[in-house]
Each structure stands twice: as structure tokens, then as C-alpha cells.
């Protein structure tokens, strides 16, 4: 279903460009952005590209190749490939950078370009700003006929990525688990089918067929999406754990062995619980919209949580102010988590393997692990946005809830002991998001009051 905003869906920002193909994102945007990236990259080393299975990816790939080759960049094309594999290949091939074509957790009519620098890292805000400036100026460094770039296809990228995973995780030990995976017709099936062949693991895949036009369901990594097909199959199939990936495999969500769909908020606390005792680093970077359980778990292991604004770029920028060995984990409450072992790239597959390793090493079931945590209840809502009234709304809320601890890092967050709310403007849709969390039962009263308040400004 195309949202009413599809006609104005194009968004060009520090994280790349994104939109509904045809009405928002067009061939000419792709070409210009590709040429800007080809101009931006330092010479030397090829550019690795790959795409998720959306039908429009074929068109976008052509435009990307044209723009990069015209700037004299050689291109290594991985074809349909998961985003973490693209980032891994940039490192392995000592490439100058890379591009992932895919709209991740958005529905099929969307597409997007994500840009990576050397080592497969995300662009810093300063780098992304430079790229945007080149895009807007349209002064591209096209080369003459003697220096044109050339493209080659590479097919072994997933195999080399699995080599790397095998160096970090004990695949033979994970064979004992029966793991149900909802691939949502995306790229995770390419990795997991191969892992079964190579390591004898038992990943049972549903919605594993690569699809370009219609996915089995919305590819978002949320509890609601887990509840659709994955969770109900857990008990009938006797699975030990269930995982759902978005289309480009950088995010993951969970189902417990008893068939309970787990909140997407739990991926980060689970990984924190697993990694903090094992890593010398004690710092976790998370956005201010994700669960307070993280602080509880961090304090259990002598760790600390740094809260940053919502969005990948804020996490990247915060990361860049630390030495890599200081940070144990960074991520968001959406199932997108970065680990130092994997050079801080969002990697749903590596996150899944960390959860399974935790189950293996602890000897407990996923629901036993989750039940051992203090219970928090989170409520999320959204209200259409009237942009010019946002500052007044935030000021009003701030005054009304002045008895709590206030943060204006991103919108407004107010904390009380065991309870907090966060009101902010979405970066991807014209809506205001309201999130409210409380230890124990859901904070319904506060949540309804906030929604009412926000609505009065709409």
C-alpha cells in the first residue's frame, strides 16, 4: 500500500536517499547521487555495490554503475546481497567505499541508497555533508574516455562473510538448536541456507523465496511482524528460538520457544547481557527512545549506557568520539545493533548468532533469559505532524511535566524513577512519535494523556 505521502516520498539526507520509486525516487536522482559519490571518493580501490531483491533495484543498479564508472571508479557488483555482506566485502576487497541498494524495513515500493566509506563504515556526518554538497552543486568529476571505470561481478562474497562469522561464533555448538527464521523474502535466506549446508546448522526458513514485488508481510522488525507468522509456528515446529530479518538483513527481531513474540526493544538488552561480561569495554551507546532495561542490565555487569538522539547518524557520530575498544555495543530499539567484532556495522545475522551463543553458553531457554529481566512495559503511538507547532508542543509538555528529569537531546524526554516518556518528530515520516515506558504494567494513563496533548497541537 502506498502511503498518502508517496508523491512526496523523496528524502535526501545524511543517511543517503530514499523514496517510493517512480513517484519519489527517480532514475535521475540515482544517477546524480552515484556521480556525487564517485566524485566524493578518494581515487584508488574499487566501489562495492549490492542490492536487496526489490524489482526497482535492477534499475537503480544500472544508474549507480553509470554514475560511478563515469567518474572513473571501478565497481565490484555483488548482485543481490545482504547489507552486512556488502560492508564486509568493502573491507575484504580493500575498496574505497560501497553502496547498498535497498529499503531495509520499508515496504516493497520503496527503495534507498546507503553509502559506506573505507572499511565498510557508515559515513560520518562531516563526510555525508560533503557528499550532499557535491550532489546539490552537481559539479561531478567525470573522467575522459581514457580513464573510464569498469565493473566486475563477484559471487563469493557470502562465503567469505561466513568465514568471518565462523571465526567469531562456534557453529558446531549451535547445531543443536532448531531455529525458525522468517526471511520476509529478503536476503537473509542467502546466508542461512548456505550456513545449513556448510555448518550443519538447522535454520528452518519461512518466506525464504527472494521476492521483488510483494513480500509476505511488512518487512519491519517489530513484535507485531513477529506475531504474524513466525511466533505461531514456534511451538508446532518445536523451535528453540525464532528470528525475523528485514529485507537487507541488518535488523533482527525475536520469538521465544513458547511462541511469544518478543518486543524488538529486547535485542539490545539481550546482546548487552551477553557481551558486557565478555568484553573489556563497558560502554553501550543507545538512543533515548529505547528501553530503560538497558541501564538495569548494564549496571549488573558494571557497564554504562550513553544515550544519543534517535537515528543511525547520531550513533555513528557518538561512536567516533571513542576508541573502538571502549565500546561494547551500539544500537537502537529497532533491532539494529552494531558490535565491535564486526567493525560496528548493523548486522542482524551476527546479532542472531550472539543470541544463540548466549543460549548455548547459559544453557537456558530464551524465555528463561527474558523472564530473568525486570519487566518493563512500553507503549508507542504516532500522530500526524503539523511542523510549525512542534516547538510550542514541546515547550508545553516540558512545563506540564517539569517534575521529571528533562532531556532535550532529541525532541523531549522526561524521566521519573521507573517511568519515562519521549516525544519526537520522525526522521522518515511526517509524524510525531510518542513513546512511554514503565517498570511493571503499561503506563496507560500517562500515554493517553500525552497522545491527547499532542493531538491538541495537530
Amino acid at each position, binding site marked *: 500500500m502506498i502511503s498518502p505521502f508517496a508523491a512526496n516520498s523523496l528524502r535526501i539526507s545524511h543517511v543517503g536517499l530514499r523514496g*517510493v*520509486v*517512480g*513517484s519519489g525516487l*527517480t*532514475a*535521475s536522482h*540515482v*544517477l*546524480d547521487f*552515484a*556521480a556525487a559519490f564517485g566524485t566524493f571518493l578518494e581515487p584508488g580501490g574499487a566501489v562495492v555495490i549490492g542490492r536487496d531483491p*526489490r*524489482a*526497482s533495484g*535492477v*534499475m*537503480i543498479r*544500472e*544508474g549507480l*554503475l*553509470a*554514475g560511478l*564508472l*563515469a567518474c572513473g571508479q571501478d565497481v565490484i557488483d555483488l548482485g543481490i546481497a545482504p547489507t552486512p555482506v556488502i560492508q564486509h566485502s568493502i573491507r575484504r576487497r580493500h575498496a574505497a567505499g560501497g553502496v547498498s541498494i535497498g529499503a531495509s524495513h520499508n515496504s*516493497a*515500493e*520503496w*527503495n534507498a541508497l546507503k553509502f559506506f566509506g573505507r572499511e565498510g563504515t557508515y559515513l560520518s556526518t562531516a563526510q555525508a555533508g560533503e557528499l550532499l554538497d557535491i550532489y546539490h552543486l552537481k559539479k*561531478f568529476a*567525470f*573522467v*575522459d*574516455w*581514457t580513464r*573510464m*571505470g*569498469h*565493473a566486475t561481478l563477484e559471487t563469493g562474497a557470502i562465503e567469505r562473510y561466513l568465514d568471518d562469522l565462523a571465526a567469531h561464533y562456534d557453529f558446531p555448538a549451535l547445531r543443536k538448536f532448531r531455529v525458525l527464521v522468517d526471511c520476509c523474502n529478503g536476503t537473509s535466506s542467502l546466508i542461512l541456507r548456505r550456513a545449513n549446508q556448510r555448518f550443519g546448522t538447522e535454520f528452518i526458513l519461512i518466506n525464504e523465496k527472494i521476492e*521483488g*514485488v510483494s513480500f509476505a508481510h511488512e518487512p519491519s522488525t517489530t513484535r507485531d511482524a513477529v506475531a504474524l507468522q513466525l511466533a505461531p509456528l514456534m511451538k508446532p515446529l518445536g523451535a528453540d528460538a525464532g528470528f525475523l530479518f528485514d529485507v537487507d538483513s541488518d535488523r533482527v527481531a525475536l520469538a521465544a520457544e513458547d511462541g511469544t513474540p518478543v518486543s524488538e526493544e529486547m535485542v539490545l538488552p539481550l546482546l548487552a547481557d551477553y557481551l558486557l561480561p565478555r568484553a573489556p569495554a563497558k560502554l553501550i551507546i543507545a538512543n533515548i527512545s529505547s528501553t530503560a532495561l538497558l541501564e538495569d542490565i548494564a549496571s549488573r555487569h558494571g557497564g554504562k549506557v550513553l544515550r544519543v538522539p534517535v537515528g543511525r547518524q547520531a550513533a555513528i557520530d557518538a561512536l567516533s568520539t571513542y576508541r573502538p575498544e571502549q565500546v561494547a555495543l551500539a544500537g537502537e530499539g529497532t533491532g539494529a545493533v552494531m558490535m565491535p567484532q564486526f567493525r560496528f556495522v548493523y548486522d542482524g545475522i551476527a546479532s542472531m548468532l550472539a543470541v544463540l551463543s548466549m543460549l548455548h553458553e547459559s544453557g537456558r531457554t530464551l524465555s528463561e533469559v527474558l523472564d530473568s529481566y525486570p519487566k518493563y512495559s512500553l507503549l508507542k503511538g504516532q500522530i500526524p505532524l503539523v511542523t510549525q507547532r512542534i516547538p510550542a508542543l514541546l515547550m508545553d509538555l516540558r512545563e506540564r511535566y517539569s517534575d521529571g528529569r528533562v532531556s532535550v537531546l532529541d525532541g523531549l524526554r522526561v524521566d521519573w524513577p521507573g517511568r519515562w516518556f519521549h516525544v519526537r518528530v520522525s526522521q522518515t515520516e511526517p509524524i510525531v512519535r510518542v513513546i512511554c515506558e514503565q517498570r511493571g504494567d503499561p503506563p496507560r494513563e500517562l500515554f493517553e494523556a500525552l497522545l491527547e496533548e499532542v493531538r491538541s497541537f495537530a
Partner: protein
Amino acid sequence: MPREHLLKIGVSGIRGVVGDFLTPGLACAFAQAFGTYVGAGRVVVGRDTRSSGEMLYHAVACGLLAAGCEVVDVGILPTPTIQIYVGATRARGGIAITASHNPPEYNALKLFNSEGLFFNSYERGELLDLYHQSEFRRATNEEIRRATSDYASASRLHIERVLRHVDAQRIRRRGFRVALDAVNGAGSVMTVGFLRDTMHCDLHAISVDPTKPFPRIAEPRPDTLGDLSELVRSCGAEVGFAQDPDGDRLAVADETGRVLDNDDVLALAVDAALRRLPGDVVVNLTTSSVIDEVAAAHGRRVYRTPVGEANVVEMMQAVKAVIGGEGSNGGIIFPAVHLCRDSYTGMAFLLERMAETGESMSALAARLPRFYRKLGKVAYEHGRLGTLMQALEESFPGVETDRSDGLKLILPGAWIHVRASNTEPLLRMAVEARSEGEVDDLYARVLRLFG
């Protein structure tokens, strides 16, 4: 001071120096306009060996896919081969990425309709308007189709078509020793296969590496084919062939290494065609009168058109001509194979004539009626064109004129054709007569007027 024409967008498509002028964005937008014009269906894309071809292929594929077309990539192939494939596979249209005989820094898009023919002048205008309006069809995710490839069948198809019209057995039996210069162009692979494997020639080839740049000036003319002449002499070839980078133009050297005048090559092809099929001939205004004499010997008529392949093709369709072309540039168009310039038909015709008659290439050429030609160009100032043309006409009072492309003065046994170039601020002059002295005299008179 001639201005450089680094980019030209017009009714014949888009052409320019790759880099800052012919950009991927322009090629993509033009392809998207084309895809919008021909509709959502299969569109064939092929290219010559220019280093920018790969990049432009991706730009063109992007534009076509964005317009909802399915792309069929046929890879590196001669332009006539691409055209034949478009027609035979009932595609919606085709695009050849090639700047033909232009230098290597240029590239261009040649556009074909569903029959693999150039659009007529009205269609070309419509397409250009669509491009300028920038209102392209933009396919959604559900409407975007795939990109496929077919690298094998087009060349087979083309050669099969040519073989329907020549006696290949007769050519094979002769085992001709043939020299070839394919300028490292799109014919590099296919022409070697055609001459060696299909026609069983003892082939001696140079410049047949499609991964290398053009080793000579790309246009195959007597003054650019020194290497071919040398090769013919050193290997003792009975004939030498040279192609341009996209394999549509043909130049021929005889067994002495002398490169034939391209008008004479066309005349030999016209003769060969009219021996096979009944019908008339179409050539451009600047093509030699040798064609008229050859056609007259078969009792056939010659139609003249403005310069440009598309003009010749349009007229050939209208009068159902059996053969046509443009003498000066080595284009031979034989519609029974396909309505396009085709060097392969040309090579097959000449080899068959040699096999049939048992005569050498130089002897066949010597039988043609003898005309003398002189070609040249001179810069002119904008605004002076009318004055110059009037002065020319007035200095030859009472002669027959043709103004369909510049000014052609038709004198008894001679003609003078002066036209402004479409691409440069130059006047192109051509003079032809039956004697060398008369040509020199007429040419000098024109030069005096313009100099």
C-alpha cells in the same frame, strides 16, 4: 574559427564527447524519453568497443528500466547486427551505443523502431519534443521489468540473412586470401568468424582486439587505411576489407593494396544487387554519377536524397528500392537483408562477384564507368551562406539545380554540390566530372568564389 561541437542533441539522437559533455545523466534521460515513446516492452541495447560504452550501457539501461521497458543486452555488436536483431525479435525498439566513425572520445546513441529501422523524420521530432518536455514515464516497483542478455544469437541471425542472398558455396570453393582491418571495433570478433569460418577465406587480420583502442582514424577512407594496404601487399591478399568502429561502413582495397573510392565500392554493390533483384536505387546527392550509369545498364532508376543515412532509408522505403547507400562514407544498404548500412552484405557481394567472374578486384573496379571527383571543405561566416550560394548559382547560368540539401548544380557530364555541414560551420564541396582536367577546373572555380 570553428567552434568545437562537444555535444549535439537533435533529431538524429544524442552525440558528444564523453565526460563533461555527454554525461550519464543525459544518456539516461534520453533513454527514458525513448522508453516512454516506444512503450513498456522489450528494448534491445548493444554497443561498439569504445571505452565509454560500458558506462553508457548502464546509463541507457537505467533510463529504459525506469520507463518500464525490459532491457535485452546484446553486448558488443556491429550496428546492423543490432538492427536486424531488433526487427527479428519483435522488440519495441533498440539503441546502439556508438559514435560510428567519430574519434574515440565521442559516443552517441542511435535509436531504432520495432523493425530495427531509424525513426522517420516525424517520429524523430516527436521523440525530441518528449525529451525536452522531460515528462517521462516513471515505472513503480511493480512495473519495473528485468534486464536480460543475449550475446549469441544476433550475429548468427545476421550472417544467416546475408547468406540467403549470396552463393556461399561458390565463395568457399575459391578459398580467397583476404585481409581485414576491423579497427578493434564491434566487428572485431564477428567479422573474423564471418570471413574465416563462414566464407572459408584464408584470413589475415589486423586490429581485431575489441579490448584495445582504435589504432587508426576511425573512418575507413583511402587516406586512413595505410596499414590495410600494407597488409594486402605483404600477405598477397586478393582483397582487403576495412570497417568502421560499429561495423556499418565498409572500405575495400584491391589486390595491389590500392584502396578503392567508396563510390566505386557502392557501384559494385549496386551492380551485384541489381543482378539479383528487380528494383530502383536510392543514393544521396553527393554520391557519384557512376551509380546512375550502373543502374541505367540494368534499366533502373536512381533517386537522390539529402545527405544522411536516415534520409536515404526513408526514401528507400517510400520507393521500395532494392539497393541504396551513401557513396562517400562507404554505406551499402540492401533491404533484402535489412534496411540499414551493412558492411557484411558488402563483403559478401564483392567476394561473390570475384568468385562469379573469376576477375581480380582491380579488374572489377576498372570496368566501372570512370568519373573523377574532388572533395573539400571551407570555413564560412554565419550570414554569408546565401551570398555564397547565389554567387555559385549565378556563375553557372541556366544549369539544372537541386536545393534539397544545400545547392547542387547539374551540368552536362558533371556536377557540383555544396552544402553546409550539420555539425561544424563548414561548407562541404564535392565536384565530379568525366575528366581530371574538368574536375580541377570546376573545383577551382568554386574555390575562387568561396575563398
